C-alpha cells in the first residue's frame, strides 16, 4: 500500500558546472491513509453471494417444477398418442372394403353391371347405360366369405356407438351446383 517516494533534484545536473548537491532531507511523511477496508465491499460480496444462492435456488425450483410440467405434458402426449393410435386403427378397419360393401348393401346399393360414362366436356354418353336394379346385377353374396377379424372385433366392441354415429344426417342441405364457368371437365379420361 505504499509507493516509494522519489526525491527529485530541484535542478538538472549541469556537467559544465560543478555539481551542487541539494541538502538532504527526510522523506516527507505521507498522507495518512485509511488502513481499514470499506464496509461496502463486504456488503457487496456477501450480498452477491446471497443473490447467487437465491437465484440458484429459484432456478432449481423452476427447473424441477419444469420437470414435473414436462413429465405431465409427456403423459398427455402419450395419452393423445394412444387416442390417435386407437382412432387410426378404427379408421383403417372401417375403410376396409368388407365394411364399406356391407354398409353400402345395408343402404340398398347394388352393383351396376352395365358401366357407362357421361363425358362432361361434350355431354356424350359412352357405353350402354343400363338400369342398376337388383335384376340387372348379380348381388353380392354374404359379406363374410372374405373374412375380416379386425372389422369383426371392432363391430363387436362398439356396435352401439357406430349405430348412433351412422344415423343419416338428413338436415344437411346439399350444396347447390352452379355451372357459371361451364361444365366441369374431367382431368382424366
Amino acid at each position, binding site marked *: 500500500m505504499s509507493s516509494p517516494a522519489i526525491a527529485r533534484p530541484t535542478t538538472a545536473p549541469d556537467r559544465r558546472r560543478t555539481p551542487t548537491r541539494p541538502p538532504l532531507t527526510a522523506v516527507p511523511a505521507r498522507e495518512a491513509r485509511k488502513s481499514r477496508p470499506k464496509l461496502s465491499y463486504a456488503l457487496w460480496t456477501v450480498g452477491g453471494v446471497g443473490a447467487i444462492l437465491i437465484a440458484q435456488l429459484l432456478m432449481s425450483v423452476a427447473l424441477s417444477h419444469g420437470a414435473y410440467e414436462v413429465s405431465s405434458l409427456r403423459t398427455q402426449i402419450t395419452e393423445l398418442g394412444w387416442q390417435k393410435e386407437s382412432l387410426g386403427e378404427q379408421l383403417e378397419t372401417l375403410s376396409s372394403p*368388407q365394411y364399406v360393401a356391407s354398409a353400402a348393401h345395408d343402404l340398398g346399393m347394388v352393383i351396376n353391371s352395365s358401366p357407362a360414362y357421361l363425358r362432361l366436356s361434350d355431354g356424350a354418353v359412352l*357405353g*350402354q347405360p343400363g338400369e342398376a336394379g337388383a335384376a340387372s346385377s348379380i348381388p*353380392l353374396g354374404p359379406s363374410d366369405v*372374405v373374412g375380416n377379424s379386425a*372389422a369383426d372385433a371392432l363391430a363387436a366392441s362398439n356396435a352401439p356407438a357406430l349405430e348412433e354415429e351412422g344415423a343419416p344426417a338428413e338436415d344437411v342441405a346439399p350444396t347447390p351446383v352452379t355451372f357459371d364457368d361451364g361444365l366441369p371437365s374431367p382431368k382424366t379420361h
Partner: protein
Amino acid sequence: MALAIVCVLAVVGAFIVRLVDIQVVQADQLRAVAASKTADQSTVYGARGEIVDTNGNVLAGSVTRYDIVLDPLNAKPFTRTDDGGASVTVSVEQAAAEIGAITGSTGAEIQALIADALAVNPESRYAVAAKTLDVDDFQAVRALKIPWVGSQKHPGRIYPNGAVGGNVIGFVGSDGTPLQGLEQAQNDCLASINGTQTFKKGKDGVILPGTTQTIVDAKNGGTLKLTIDRDLQWFAQQRIAEQVIATGGDSGTVTIMDAKTGKIRAVAQYPSVDPGNVGGIDEYYRQALSFTAPFEPGSTFKALTAAMLIDAGLATPESKVVADGWFYPDNGARIKDSIPHGPMKLTLTGVLAESSNTGISQMGEALTPQQRYDYLKKFGIGDVTAVGFDAESGGILSQPDVWDNQTYYATMFGQGLSATPIQIASAYQALANGGVQVAPSLIEGCEHDDGSITDVPSASEKRVVSEQAADEVVQMLESVVTDGHFGDTLQIPGYRVAAKSGTAEQGDGSGGLKDTYVVSMTGMAPAEDPEYVVSVHISNPTKIRSSAAAAPTFQQIMTQVLKTYRIEPSTEPSPDLPTTY
C-alpha cells in the same frame, strides 16, 4: 505432546485410508449403485414397416400392443379415490373381476392366476394376466388404478382389411416373427431395429430434464408398396368365393394383370387366410395358390398354340380344318372333344370358339415339338416368373424328346404340362400387349424412412410372337365371346371382350383321371387395345363341371376392372371373324 501428534496422525491416516478406499478402491462399485438408483434405460421400439397397396391403403400395419402383468405378492385390497374425491376400499376379488371384464376372462380366473403364481413362488412378483391388448383395453385397465397391476408394451401387427390379399401378404407370429408370404420374403425391407435410451430419474420416477441419452437409434422398417389394388382384390376374392361355394368347388383363384405393364392388380383366392386369424383356415390355403399351385391349364392354352401357328406363318385365322368329335392320329394317340359332335368345318377362329381339341391337334401338327416347346418357354411356361414369390412354382414343362404320343398332342391344348395362374395370366398379357411380354410384378418397391426407394423390379420386356400374331389371336378370342358356348355370360355391354375357356382334366394321383376338372376363363378387354387381363380358375366344381362355372365370375370381375380404371367403352364392333366355312 508426542502422544497428541500420534493421535492426530492416526486420525488423519484413518481418514486418508477411508478416502482412498471410497474414491479409488470402491469407486466403480459405488458409482454403479448410485447410478442404479437414479439412472435407468428403456427400449425404443422401431416400427415394422407397413405393407400398402398401390394406392397407399394399409394392408399390414404396425401398432402397439400391451400385456397386462400382475404383482401377486402385493395383490391386496387397496384404496381408490374416485372422481368425486371419495375413497373406497377395493377388494382383490372386485379388482380381479374388473380386470377380467376388460381382458375377457372371469375374476375367478384372475384370482386363480395370482394364487397359482404364489403357490409356485410365495415371493412372486410377476404373472401375466392378458396378452396383446389393444390400446383401448389397455387404457381401460390402466384407469382402474390398481397398484399391483402393470403393463408391458411391445410392437404388434394389424391387418385392417382381413383376408383381402392375405394369401400374398402372409402373416407374423404372435411374437412378431414373420412366418409366411411377403411378411417373410420381404422381411429385409420391413424389419425395424430397436434402439436403447438411458435417462436419470428422481425418487418419484420423474425423468430429470436433459438426462435422456440415446445409446442406439431405433430404425423404422421400410414401407412395402404392392401393385395390388385393395378394392379390386376384395371384389375378386368376394366373387370367386361366391362362385366356388355356388358350384361346390374346392378352391378358386383370380389374377388381374395390367396388360401394358405386367403389374398384378389382384391375386385373389378362396379360401384365403385372414392374417389376423391364421388359425381359422386349413394350412394348405395359407399359401398363395396362384404362385405355388400349378395345374394342367387345359384349353386356355389353345390360344398360345394358335399364336405360334400364326407367328410361324403356318396358319391364319381363316385356316381351315375338319374337326370331328374324335381324332385318331397315326401315332396311336386318341383325341376327343368334350362334347360329342359330327364333322365340323371350322376355321382356326372356329377351333378356338368351339374349343375343339381335334381341330387344334390337326392344325398343331404343322409345328415341330421343339418349336412348340421353344414358344412355350418364351411364353414363360416351365419357369418361375420374375415375381419370385416365396415357394413359387414354375410348373412342369418337360423336354419335347420325352413327350409320348399322347403328350405330343395334349400339349397343344394345355394338357400334359402344368402352369400357375400367374404364368397363364402372363402368357395372355403377352398376347394382349402385341406379343411383348412384360415381366409380371407384385411389388412397386420398398420406401425407406429417408425417402429412398429400393427393390423396384425391372420391367424387362421380351417379344414372344409377332404383333400381328398376337393381335389376330385376340381378335379370334373375341369370337369365343360373340360366338362361343358362353357368349351370354361373357359379354359386357359396350365393350369388346376376348376370352378363352378351359376345362382341364386332372390326374387323381393313381394313374387315372378325376371326374372333376379345373375350369378356367382367361381373357382381356377392351379387345381393340387390351388394358387388363383377367384369369379365373375354379378347382373341381361339382355342380357345374365345365368352364361355364368360371364364365360369370370372369364377366363380373372384368366389368369391375373396366369400371375401376375408367376404361372407355369400345367404339367399333368386333370383327366377327368367320368360324366356319
